């Protein structure tokens, strides 16, 4: 009798412990870093070529997600969601006249911690000179709401949205000239997705929020990227970036011509002739 009672109490305690376990705050992280990929051994970080980068227009651009670190317990970005996200970045470059072709490179072709050697292999394989590496830093917080004790009724676990989810995403694109290993520019994009779910559907909701967060951050990133590209062009044209030059289709250096900044101008001789004519007309009128 006592044994049966004890078993019952033990099972009830175990069930309560399991259910209440769902109500603990939880954190899920997905993180890939450009630095971990390009410079896996800090002491051996290679220096860029001393001559700097000389980009020939139209650019052949490759876009890839940075692979997840080797032996990482963190789940990588699902391969199926990589392409739609990279397509958003491709859309930002698609209509630019200075970009010739854009290749989407699966992250499975990049080795974790592979460094510039691996990047060069992938770039050569796809026939691109410039690589845009997309890294993701996503943290998902799940906190129980005050009424989550109702999960003890079991029915509550299926019906009450007592899990408060908060998904914070930061996406960063770093663009490199692969042959010279020169860093060209970077642009960030971030998002914050909030929501709630029942504990039974918590994982499913977190996956949906993760995708939504990545999508929103990617869209912000494209806006920032367009601004950064314009700023980058202006820096080259003004000579502020000594380590990079861009050569247009006609073989002219962007640094020498000021890029595609056009102006209409009168020369000194023409303006002087105009002023002389004006002076003569005024003098004639006064007579």
């Amino acid at each position, binding site marked *: 009798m006592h044994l049966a009672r004890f078993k019952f109490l033990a099972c009830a305690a175990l069930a309560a412990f399991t259910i209440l376990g769902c109500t603990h705050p939880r954190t899920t992280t997905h993180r890939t870093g450009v630095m971990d990929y390009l410079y896996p051994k800090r002491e051996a970080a290679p220096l860029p070529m001393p001559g700097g980068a000389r980009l020939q227009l139209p650019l052949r651009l490759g876009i890839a997600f940075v692979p997840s670190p080797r032996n990482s317990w963190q789940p990588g970005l699902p391969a199926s969601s990589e392409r739609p996200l990279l397509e958003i970045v491709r859309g930002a470059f698609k209509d630019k006249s200075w970009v010739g072709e854009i290749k989407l490179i699966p992250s499975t072709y990049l080795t974790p911690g592979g460094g510039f050697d691996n990047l060069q292999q992938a770039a050569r394989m796809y026939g691109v000179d410039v690589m845009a590496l997309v890294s993701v830093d996503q943290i998902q917080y799940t906190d129980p709401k005050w009424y989550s004790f109702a999960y003890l009724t079991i029915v509550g676990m299926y019906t009450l949205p007592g899990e408060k989810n908060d998904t914070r995403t930061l996406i960063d694109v770093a663009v490199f000239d692969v042959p010279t290993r020169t860093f060209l520019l970077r642009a960030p994009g971030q998002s914050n997705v909030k929501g709630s779910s029942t504990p039974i559907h918590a994982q499913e909701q977190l996956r949906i929020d993760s995708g939504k967060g990545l999508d929103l951050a990617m869209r912000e990133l494209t806006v920032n990227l367009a601004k950064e590209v314009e700023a980058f062009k202006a820096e080259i*044209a003004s000579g502020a970036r000594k380590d990079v030059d861009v050569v247009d289709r006609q073989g002219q250096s962007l640094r020498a011509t000021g890029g595609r*900044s*056009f*102006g209409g*101008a*009168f020369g000194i001789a023409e*303006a002087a002739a*105009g002023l002389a*004519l004006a002076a003569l007309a005024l003098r004639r009128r006064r007579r």
Partner: protein
Amino acid sequence: MNPPPPEAVNPFVLEAGAWAQPWRLWTCHLVHFGPWHALLNLAALAAPFAVLPRALRPRLVLGLALAAPLLSLALLPLIGDGTYRGASGLACTAWAAAGLALLRDRRPEALALLGLLGAKLAWEAFRGAPWMPGGEGWTALPAAHGIGALAGLGWGLVLAARGGPRR
């Protein structure tokens, strides 16, 4: 000294997105690459106003206001994803319009204005943009002068047809 703002950040220059920001069609003719660029264009723009009779000056201003967006729209396909700024296109409009308007009265200034404008366009067609100080960091767009002159000839015909006080 702070570096100049990137072209895309400048809300007044002409660029491919000018459809969404129509004020750029006018303002691009008011902004310049530097004091020399602005000064020389201003001098060129002042000449036809000085030559023209006072009664025709408001009409020339109206013509320039109308020609500015047309000129900008014509330049949009030429600049691609670049930007444009400067009043010289409008100055050519003013030279052509004033020259043609004064031609009705057989004024010598008319021939001088049209002759100088023709010489400038011919020089640019064969030898490229004229030299000016502070011209580094950007490229002259002679097409702006040709299109501006065409617009000016059109407005000059209107001025000549509607007439004005003969002097």
